[in-house]
């Protein structure tokens, strides 16, 4: 989706949620931080963990585990990080992940489309899952599921209208 013409390689910032490997295009990521003080926002959908203050700006912190239909592995663990996204994918927000992994560079050709949802169709969050990610990439040892960062916020907004 980006820089396709100049390079056939895409880089992803990868992280784990419930032991599975996920990735977000590195061009959408602003920074990665340890979890700052989070203030819960009552009445907000459960997908919103709260708000955090990053250098004087208020960011919405999303519970990505919940959005993917997974368990937050060890709440409060030292390993947890937040991935802050660029404003190009949505107004000030960050997502919480279990552990952060390396930046992975993959060739455009090894990215496969999976929008039929067969990759993880067994999980209970299948329908949510596929709307967030419709591309996977097979690495040497495991499967990397690519998350469309620009679909995160709309998904939160949608749930509210649903309820």
């Amino acid at each position, binding site marked *: 989706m980006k820089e396709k013409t100049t390079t056939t390689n895409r880089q992803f910032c990868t992280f784990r949620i419930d032991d599975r490997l996920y990735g977000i295009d590195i061009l959408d990521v602003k920074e990665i931080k340890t979890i700052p003080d989070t203030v819960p926002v009552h009445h907000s959908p459960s997908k919103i963990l709260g708000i955090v203050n990053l250098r*004087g700006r208020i960011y919405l912190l999303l519970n990505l585990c919940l959005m993917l239909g997974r368990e937050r592995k060890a709440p409060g663990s030292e390993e947890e990080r937040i991935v802050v996204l660029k404003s190009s994918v949505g107004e000030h927000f960050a997502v919480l992940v279990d552990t952060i992994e390396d930046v992975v560079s993959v060739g455009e050709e090894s990215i496969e489309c999976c929008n039929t949802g067969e990759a993880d169709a067994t999980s209970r969050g299948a329908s949510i899952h596929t709307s967030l990610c419709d591309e996977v990439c097979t690495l040497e040892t495991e499967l990397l599921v690519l998350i469309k960062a620009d679909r995160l916020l709309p998904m939160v907004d949608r749930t509210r209208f649903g309820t």
Partner: protein
Amino acid sequence: MTTQKDQLDEQLMQDPELTAAFISEAREHLDAVGDDFLLLEQQLENPDKELINKIFRAIHSVKGAAGFLGFSKVSELAHTMETLLTKIRSDQLIPIPAHIDALLAGVDQLTVMLRDVDLCRKADISTNLAQINQLLDVKTAIEEIPPQEIPSQKKKKQPKQAVPDRIALDMGNTIRLHVDILDKLMLQAGELVLIRNQQMLGGVESEGGTRSLTHRLDVAVNELQQTVIQARMQPIDKVVGKFPRVVRDLSRQLGKNIRISISGGQTELDRTILEIIADPLTHIIRNCCDHGIESPEERKQAGKPVTGQISIATRHEAGLIVMEISDDGRGIDLDIVRRKALEKKLKTREELKQMSDKATLLLIFQPGFSTIEEAGDLSGRGVGMDVVKTGIEQLGGSLDLDSEKGKGLKILLRLPLTLAIIPCLIVTTGEELFAIPQANLQELFCIYDQDVRDRIERADDQEVFRLRNQLLPLVRLSEVLLQPERFKRKDRARIAEQYRQEQDKLYFSERVKEDSDHKQSLNCVVLKTGTSHYGLVVDEIRGTEEIVVKPLHRSLQSLGIYSGVTIMGNGRSAMILDGEGTARHAGVNADVSQHSDMETVIDEGFGNVLLFQSGGQEQLAVPLPRLQRIENIKMEDIEFIGEREFITVQGISTRVFRLEEVLDVSPLIEGEEMFLLIVRNSAHPAGLFCSSLVDIAEISTELDQDSLPMNGLLGTCVLDKVMSLVLDIPALLRLFEPEWFAGKRSEAQTPGKRKLQGAEEK
């Protein structure tokens, strides 16, 4: 040549930066010139050359730049206006109002065109051109006839001195900055303040050297913040400066003579506030012109000067901006307000009687209220003043009215200096901090020990506290936060019951221990917003703090109970509570708070029911909040109109109902002396017959709704060891008099017409 020019056009049109610069500059020129035209109009006979020159220069620069950038329509129109101005300048033409009209129309057209680059090329300027050209033609003809006028004019002209050319002066010292940069600067300054705060917290134990450094940092940061805030301030002239034009146009349109005077136009306000108040202010001014100021004939008859006067005065007062808008028009006629309030069913006759003049005046802020008989072109559709009020209140400002019939109307606005930093009360619930804007705050109080149990009562399903003889609904913040859905009756009842039981448990356990002064306290913040007045129960009150307001994240904006986010001194963020939204969420309706406005006749125990009998058999119960009062009546005073019974109570003809008319209950036992239970908040005065009063009892929350399902009953319940039927007053009224609820006023059909008229005469 044209093709060449077109090419150039295209080239230049593609340079958005140049175009943007042109547009903002041209707009500034036009803005400045609008006022000058009005000035010129006042000195028609004797135009000030310097003034005309100034206008000419402005128009000319617009024309020049437009021509350069290829906005041919703009430059054509400007050129034509320039021609007219040249004639005036060279005394070939004496300006008449028609000229000014044409020129102003031209300025308007230019302003509109400049809003949109596309319009610059496509707009239809032919009418403006025609208007000006026609004037040019006519005047060239006339100008030959009275040549003698010109010298006389020249003589008069001399004393007028130059009008300072604002634009030229300003150019040297100002730069154009995008607002985004200012906002960013503001943000960064705010962040610096936070760092400073943290540094100060850590620096307390540090050595002398670092301490003085910290102190200097503190001073510097404070100054920086002040300056940045100042940079966002703009003189209120930005908004009110447009009013002379508005008033001029309106007075023309309405055939009135109105003058407006403005003072304190240099008072500065945050630009966000300016933006928001622009509409409400325009509305007020329109109202003044349309409703306030009378026609010249009327004014003459009333012995007032023919020209109406509107004045706007702005000043600083105790950290607020106070704006006073007054007119010397007809003012607001309270009798009309009362009549309209009755017609629109906003208030009952009885309520109106009890209201002070001031409270009556404030009725005009009710949605849908308008005193004008017919909706006019400009205003009078009744959507006016409530919009103004909400607008001002949203800002954390307030609005006050003062009117004397025939003398005029005075509106007092109090506005905060800035929205970006507001004083807030910091409260906690559980672990969390919340900020409550001080503008919504009325008072704080604390309920201690025994009072927590004894003085919190229940009115219907709502917890209330009697504060200085007024009933104040209580909302518990912790409960509000727990439940994302709006509170319903049963939620409020559950909460009330839960806390009551908690208190009971505490009370009885204390009794066992025989330790009479157990310690507990309840912190309560009294909030007053547009329509609600309630006490918010919080865990702890931390104190006040000036906080930097940040807008809510877009994804959170649909949550009603917050109005923003802030970052506290310690770097943690906190939500800012929206007083109005919280009230809405908790369902604290105006109903309950209205009780507190009125004299409460029954003093003991709300949340209770009155037990009474009508027929001989069953015991009936009516929730006390539904009753206004109980009257002793004599059966002989009852008047019959057809089938319907009426009685005059305190000069008001009141419809009297017998329960057996609509409920399956034993018939009323008639005695010589009876009781009348007068119903509260009924559209028409109404009361229930009652043969004997039994007691006042407290009702358990769960009414049995199934064993005796009957329309008009809330349910049954054992009270005082007797099964009692709890009446649903609104439903009963509906059964008794369906016409009252048919949507239309049914006075004409009501047989009580005769007496109602009597009441009206009074």
